[in-house]
């Protein structure tokens, strides 16, 4: 494949404990040479997830994803050809993943890198964990146009979907980028959610085992609790929208409320 989705970033008010949650529940591994003041990076051996302390002026939550491409110059050229108004920005060299940051036609932000440019967890040979990242979902206003962008520029492959499903699913052969259609009418019974990243997904061996592990984890360490979902009218409305994405069979959150979908291998 020309591109692979192998980087996810979350900004969080509690970055250290949130990283422990992903390590404990999903068995993700941290970098061999961590930089604890900047962020915690956890990995399933294919995708690295940066858990970044929320900085001033910023929001907390699922923040962006990153693509590793075979040829950065070619990727830049294709972006320009698709839409000359889209700009790329070179990043400071301190970043372990990103050489450039860019955005799609709806200003959803992603990082771009070439394999040889990556550092830390992104350049280490790592064993794959049992639980694996399966998808990154974003909710955006012009889903079809954005799906065209990722298909044409990064050669991600469109996956078949039901004819009444308004969303688009693109694959790099392993990870899926889900482009969900944002519609104000979906938010009648709840506060409108801002455009942008929506949830992450994991493949697990057994949903039942994941549920048992989550219960055991919360019993061992009450700070590592997932948020209760589906309570009250608004909670039901939020969960219903989350459940409308057909990639997940079990729905949970991390300790700060970032949506996590899980499905069995």
């Amino acid at each position: 494949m020309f591109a692979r989705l192998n980087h996810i970033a979350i900004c969080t008010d509690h970055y250290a404990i949130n990283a422990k949650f992903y390590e404990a529940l999903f068995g993700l591994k941290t970098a061999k040479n961590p930089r604890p003041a900047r962020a915690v990076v956890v990995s399933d051996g294919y995708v690295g997830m940066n858990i970044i302390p929320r900085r001033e002026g910023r929001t907390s939550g699922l923040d962006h994803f990153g693509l590793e491409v075979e040829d950065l110059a070619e990727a830049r050229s294709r972006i320009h050809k698709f839409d000359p108004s889209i700009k790329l920005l070179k990043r400071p060299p301190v970043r372990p993943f990103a050489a450039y940051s860019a955005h799609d036609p709806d200003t959803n932000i992603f990082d771009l890198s070439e394999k040889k440019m990556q550092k830390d967890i992104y350049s280490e040979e790592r064993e794959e964990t049992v639980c694996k990242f399966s998808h990154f979902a974003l909710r955006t206003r012009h889903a079809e146009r954005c799906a065209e962008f990722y298909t044409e520029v990064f050669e991600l492959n469109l996956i078949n979907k039901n004819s009444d499903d308004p969303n688009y699913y693109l694959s790099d052969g392993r990870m899926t980028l889900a482009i969900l259609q944002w519609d104000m009418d979906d938010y009648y019974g709840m506060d409108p959610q801002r455009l942008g990243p929506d949830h992450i997904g994991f493949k697990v061996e057994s949903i039942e085992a994941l549920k048992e592990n989550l219960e055991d984890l919360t019993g061992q360490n009450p700070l590592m609790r997932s948020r209760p979902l589906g309570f009250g009218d608004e909670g039901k409305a939020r969960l219903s929208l989350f459940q409308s994405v057909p990639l997940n069979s079990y729905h949970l959150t991390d300790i700060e409320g970032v949506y996590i979908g899980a499905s069995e291998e």
Partner: protein
Amino acid sequence: MFAHINHMAIISNQYPFLQKYYQSVFGLETSGRNDFESASVVSDGNLGLNIIPRRDGYVGGLDHFGMVVDSIEAVEDRMSGAYEGAGCVKRPAIRPFAAYSGHDPDGNVFDLAEKGSKNLRDVYSEGVENAANCTFNRFAIRTPHAERCAEFYSEVFELQLSNRKEGDPNFHLTDGTMTLSIMPWSVSIFAGMSIKRPGPDHIGFKVKDMDAFKAEEKRIGEKNTFLASRRLGGSEESEVRRELFASNALGSYQTADPDGTWIDVVQA
């Protein structure tokens, strides 16, 4: 004015605590009928700030603003067809402020209520006095099509465009008291730092005595470090962020609440 901005919302993992910060540092008042199961609300007497517990799936931080209008029907008529991509949806009746939620052509979300409507409750229907002489004066959004969005708020809500200083790329619209600043978003403005997604950027306050305000902010933060404002600057990247904020601020002093939401302070 046809519309006035009387509502802002922050989503926070520590919402009651943030309420204490705005009460103590800015002297804002709470509603006499606080709903302890829902958001914490503070007010300067003109504008209410809802500090909402972060719910599953939402991002934390400055979230949206709201307006009271003479006629929602007129808003719908003005929006209809004229602004591709803009829209609004009716909200459940339990909201203390919003009858409708809408969004501008770039998808920036706002709440809407009609003057005198039953949705206006709590601090939105009470006369709340502000003893500390700090008042909200600004809500700033960074968005890709700033000029188009400025036209939208000007034509649909009759907010008045203010004169800009030479070289100022931002658009400032006023309802007579509050300023809505629409600032252009481009990935290139984030050189040297992480990219911030388009959306709400910062809020502003007007204070009667800047020196007295700073002294009080310092005293409170030292007395109770949980109520200390976030420090801006320090590392190389945070200096770049601080400079970006300062270059788009209208006030002479910039600070941040304990969650990191940017606050621009101007001397009255």
